[in-house]
């Protein structure tokens, strides 16, 4: 079994002057300090990627920069699913006995390291270069297409409630990018980006970094344990998605739960990828945490609030804590660990015994699910 013994999470937002390596270093320093470890006590390193620091070998660039000489290192690229894919890989490596302790780290100055136009253009290139990109779609356009189908099948009015909840959660979280309270009416009246998605349905582009130490279970070094991890990959491009209302999330989550020997009803905390309100609605529903078409309504009714039946992204998620690329989803895990430790300050919920985490990459193309058990 593997356990998370250290977390590092920088503030997200505009962190002017900080490079990708600066942000990775800050997060890694915090994760090592949190785990009570020196650099030499880590034997593995896996990193994400950075659009502002493209490199063939980001892991060893970071190792040299930070002062690590790992016996195992490489980077992973899986779009928005990368953060949890890194954690899953670290878990598998530890379970296999290939490493004793892995530092998992990602960071990017995605907001201040490039113009907003450059960020939008870079991200839009995930579309098919021949059959999609020439038509001028953007990431919000891909998700706007998904949202249009969801609206057609289930109605989409209530999904604004998910943005409202994430903003309220972020207001209680030091370091969150967006903290000004919003209402559902403000979401519905914000400027159109790619119909039916509006500005406040979309996560911001942020600077930030996150890191974890994941190691073999040892009674002397307690921490939340990774009980299950699974993936599903159904397509890459939105044009090739088998359906725009059913993706691989349910399959991935069900296998992670089965591996853990627990049922969805045993889960007490949810950390779900929320690049757009539609992403969060679809993932919650497909995983089974809300009936189809009902995620927004449940949010409005308080079901996903910190004092509700299923606390969700209590740090504010990508929608309001912010989205710096690979580190974005890693903030969801950092928050889950804090909640399990009882160290979440004013937003602390009853420390959950079991949490389900789910990330997606591409246009709901790649899915990674994790089940975390409180090891306090």
């Amino acid at each position, binding site marked *: 079994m593997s356990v998370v013994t250290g977390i590092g999470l920088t503030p997200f937002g505009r962190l002017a002057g900080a490079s990708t390596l600066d942000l990775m270093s800050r997060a890694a320093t915090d994760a090592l300090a949190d785990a009570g470890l020196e650099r030499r006590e880590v034997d593995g390193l896996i990193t994400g990627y950075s659009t502002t620091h493209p490199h063939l070998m980001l892991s060893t660039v970071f190792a040299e920069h930070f002062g690590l000489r790992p016996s195992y290192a490489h980077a992973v690229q899986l779009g928005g699913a990368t953060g949890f894919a890194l954690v899953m890989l670290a878990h598998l490596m530890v379970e296999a006995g290939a490493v004793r302790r892995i530092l998992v780290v990602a960071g990017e100055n995605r907001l201040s390291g490039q113009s907003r136009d450059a960020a939008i253009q870079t991200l839009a290139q995930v579309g098919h270069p021949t*059959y999609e990109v020439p038509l*001028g779609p953007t990431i919000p*356009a891909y998700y706007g*297409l998904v949202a249009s189908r969801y609206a057609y099948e289930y109605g989409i009015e209530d999904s604004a409630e998910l943005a409202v909840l994430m903003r309220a959660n972020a207001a209680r979280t030091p370091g969150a990018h967006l903290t000004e309270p919003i209402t559902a009416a403000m979401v519905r009246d914000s400027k159109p980006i790619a119909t039916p998605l509006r500005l406040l349905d979309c996560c911001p582009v942020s600077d930030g970094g996150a890191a974890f130490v994941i190691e073999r279970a040892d009674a002397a070094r307690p921490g939340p344990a990774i009980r299950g991890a699974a993936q599903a990959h159904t397509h890459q491009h939105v044009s090739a998605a088998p359906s725009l209302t059913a993706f691989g999330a349910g399959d991935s989550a069900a296998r992670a739960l089965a591996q853990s020997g627990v049922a969805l009803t045993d889960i007490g905390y949810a950390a779900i990828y929320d690049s757009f309100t539609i992403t969060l609605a679809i993932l919650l529903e497909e995983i089974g945490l809300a009936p189809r078409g009902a995620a927004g309504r449940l949010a409005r009714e308080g079901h996903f609030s910190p004092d509700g039946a299923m606390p969700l992204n209590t740090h504010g998620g990508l929608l309001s804590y912010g989205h710096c690329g690979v580190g974005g989803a890693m903030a969801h895990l950092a928050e889950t660990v804090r909640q399990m430790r009882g160290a979440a300050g004013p937003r602390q919920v009853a420390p959950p015994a079991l949490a389900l985490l789910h990330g997606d990459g591409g246009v709901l193309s790649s899915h990674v699910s994790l089940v975390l058990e409180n090891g306090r």
Partner: protein
Amino acid sequence: MSAEIPDWTTGGEGLTLARCRACRHVQYVRRPFCPECGSEDLSVERASGRGTVYAVTVVARAPSADLSAHAPYGIALVDAEEGFRFMAHCPLKGVAIGDAVRTTFRAFGAGLVPFVAPEGTP
């Protein structure tokens, strides 16, 4: 690619598909083999351009400066009658999921792109 069949991805006014002669799978995003069964025996055919709207959005902000003069523009995913899904431009208004559409071609950015509009509109 058959030279006689126009294809918008190479500047011609047409949509093409490739049908696997072994398993009949239809592909739009072209490879030299069938992704379902691996056969390399493909028949390249011209698609009718008729289909049904599966999803539709209006892009308010273009991804790059060279396209921003075109914004806003409509983008649809269309289920072609031959059994493949394709992305196309569409009018800003008057296109809904489930609509039957036909395809023409319009200049956009550096080339031609498919443009779908409801059957019966000019």
